[in-house]
């Protein structure tokens, strides 16, 4: 086990606490860089979606994980980013300009949402962000001169410095990866700055933060603006990846998916955003795989346990019928959310930390280390 001796205040906020980090993240980055030459084009496309979802996940973590302000409206910010890109592209604005413009516009709108949110906590904030998202969705469907209404908008191929970057090319993947890495590094830097510490202070106790001199209103609005702006950047990439956007893509369902990203990944660390994004993007191919292969596998197992070929065939067709039922995906989603909330509240990254600690402390690991405390004496109404 490694012990980190801190001899300086700077040690607490180092980007890389020890050399192991540099090595492991260096290897990870190298693997990601050679990925286009190794993986199939389908997996590459999924990897691009992982990057986009992870960017949104990081944005949501800043707001929900670190500032403690829940939002179920991030699909709206993504939509605003995507539509800004699609609209400006019609007037031949170059990519870097509309990329930044989309982030700026979403950031400003995020701040505007943040102001009313100052007075709201908990459930009220969740409901307010849902309403915001529903209103934005309706505006996108109705403001036909700009958004082309329900018919949707076509997004032209991205052109970077005069070179066309098709949405399936490795260059587009590198672009998404670069944005993701920049977002993560930027967020890490933000979180170890006074601003980031103010966010965490607000999350842990608003009253305490205020009495320590943190301007709660200012930092909440900042958190909203930053989170929205990052989501706006992701929206531009999202629009280019899909090459067609319409209002029904940015529903409450998508906002919930983003929340699931950080819930499943873990809300206390940026690792959570990436792990959650991998999970949510890869669950689709995984379910398809189960649907195609599971009946055969189960029938095979039944046959080895002595079922007659007729029974095995019967089992196979029954399982196949079950697996292709409509809405099975929704049910699985629901079960996954409930199971994670009940049994793995720290998410996938929390599980990884637990496993790591188990081996570090080998015979001495205590399950209670990660146990959360229950609070029965709170009344959110009296806050």
């Amino acid at each position: 086990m490694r012990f980190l001796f801190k001899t300086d205040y700077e040690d607490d906020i180092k980007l890389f606490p020890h050399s192991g980090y540099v090595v492991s993240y260096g290897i990870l980055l190298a693997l990601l860089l050679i990925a286009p030459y190794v993986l199939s084009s389908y997996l590459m496309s999924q990897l691009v979606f992982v990057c986009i979802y992870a960017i949104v996940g990081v944005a949501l973590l800043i707001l929900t994980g670190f500032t403690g302000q829940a939002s179920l409206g991030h699909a709206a910010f993504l939509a605003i980013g995507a539509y800004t890109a699609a609209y400006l592209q019609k007037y031949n604005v170059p990519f870097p300009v509309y990329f930044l413009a989309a982030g700026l516009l979403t950031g400003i709108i995020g701040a505007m949402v943040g102001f009313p949110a100052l007075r709201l906590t908990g459930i009220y904030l969740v409901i307010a962000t849902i309403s915001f998202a529903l209103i934005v969705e309706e505006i996108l469907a109705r403001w036909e001169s700009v958004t082309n209404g329900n018919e949707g908008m076509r997004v032209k191929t991205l052109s970077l410095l005069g070179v066309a970057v098709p949405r399936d090319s490795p260059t587009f993947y590198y672009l998404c990866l670069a944005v993701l890495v920049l977002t993560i590094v930027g967020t890490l830097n933000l979180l170890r700055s006074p601003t980031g510490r103010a966010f965490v202070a607000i999350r842990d106790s608003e009253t305490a933060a205020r009495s320590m001199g943190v301007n709660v209103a200012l930092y909440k609005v900042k958190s909203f603006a930053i989170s929205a702006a990052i989501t706006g950047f992701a929206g531009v990439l999202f629009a280019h990846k899909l090459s067609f956007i319409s209002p029904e893509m940015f529903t409450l369902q998508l906002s919930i998916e983003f929340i699931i990203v950080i819930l499943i990944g873990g809300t206390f660390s940026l690792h959570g955003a990436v792990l959650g994004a991998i999970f949510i993007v890869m669950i689709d191919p995984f379910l398809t795989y189960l649907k195609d292969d599971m009946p055969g596998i189960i029938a095979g197992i039944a046959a080895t346990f002595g079922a007659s070929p007729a029974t095995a065939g019967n089992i196979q067709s029954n399982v196949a019928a079950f697996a292709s039922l409509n809405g099975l995906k929704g049910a699985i989603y629901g079960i996954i959310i409930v199971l994670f909330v009940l049994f793995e509240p720290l998410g996938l990254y929390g599980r990884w930390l637990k496993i790591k600690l188990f081996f570090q402390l080998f015979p001495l690991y205590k399950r209670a280390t990660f146990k959360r405390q229950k609070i029965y004496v709170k009344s959110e109404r009296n806050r």
Partner: protein
Amino acid sequence: MLDFVQQLVSGVALGCVYGLIALGFVLVYKATEVVNFAQGDLMMLGGFFAFTFIGMMGLNYWIGFAGAVAAMALFGMLAERVVVRPILGYPQFSIIMATIGLGYFLRSIAGMIWGTDDLKIETPFSQGVLRMGSLVLAYDKLSVIAATMILCTLLWLFFNKTMLGTAMRASSENMLAAYYMGIPVKRVVSVVWAISAAVATCAGVLLAPITFIHSNVGLVLGLKAFPAAVLGGFGSIPGAVVGGVLIGVIESMAGFYLPEGWKDVAPYVVLLTVLLLKPEGLFGLHVRKKV
């Protein structure tokens, strides 16, 4: 003028439905400070249960109705036991997510069992209208209004006049203190979920002739019930119904007088305005925390 009255009445009927769903939110919130995002889906499931009893098994409407309410009350208890009880006392956000997950699950399961078609229940009020002068009121809408008023009064009396109701209010204020005072908090929470599922079922069955039952009806109406609950002040039983009626009237007026598109947005615009100006709602208590 006649148009106005007609819109007003259909708005009130629609609003009563929102009010009924909002009542479910408020009940659970009052007793446990948990917001149940699956409330609309409980309503949807109640409708399907009633359809099974009345439409498929051919029972009498009232017996089927009662059967659906009883079955859903049990289901509410089950849902509470499995999903909510293990995480009581954790941050509210966990519970919101858990109920969202529950909602997903119920929607898909209902879609698998009952299919994705719109189903209809034959009710004693399906046909027939009440004519008052040139005003035409359909019985199915009047039944919703009447049922809402009765349920609201009963629940208000229950919460304010009975021992169990007082116990529920106490456990919402401070679970630990309520437990020390001898209130069986776990059972109280269980009963609240049963009641709120039963109320949701009433909403679902009464709604069946108006909007039909399909697996997404709960999501759509549940989202509309939030503005109702917030407008009335989360935690006030008459507030939920008044809020629901206001939202219903605003929605139907917006649909009639304002350009297309406003109908769906108006409730949320109202909601955001209320949250901005008076976050505790019309009937909510505003209490400052003492340090």
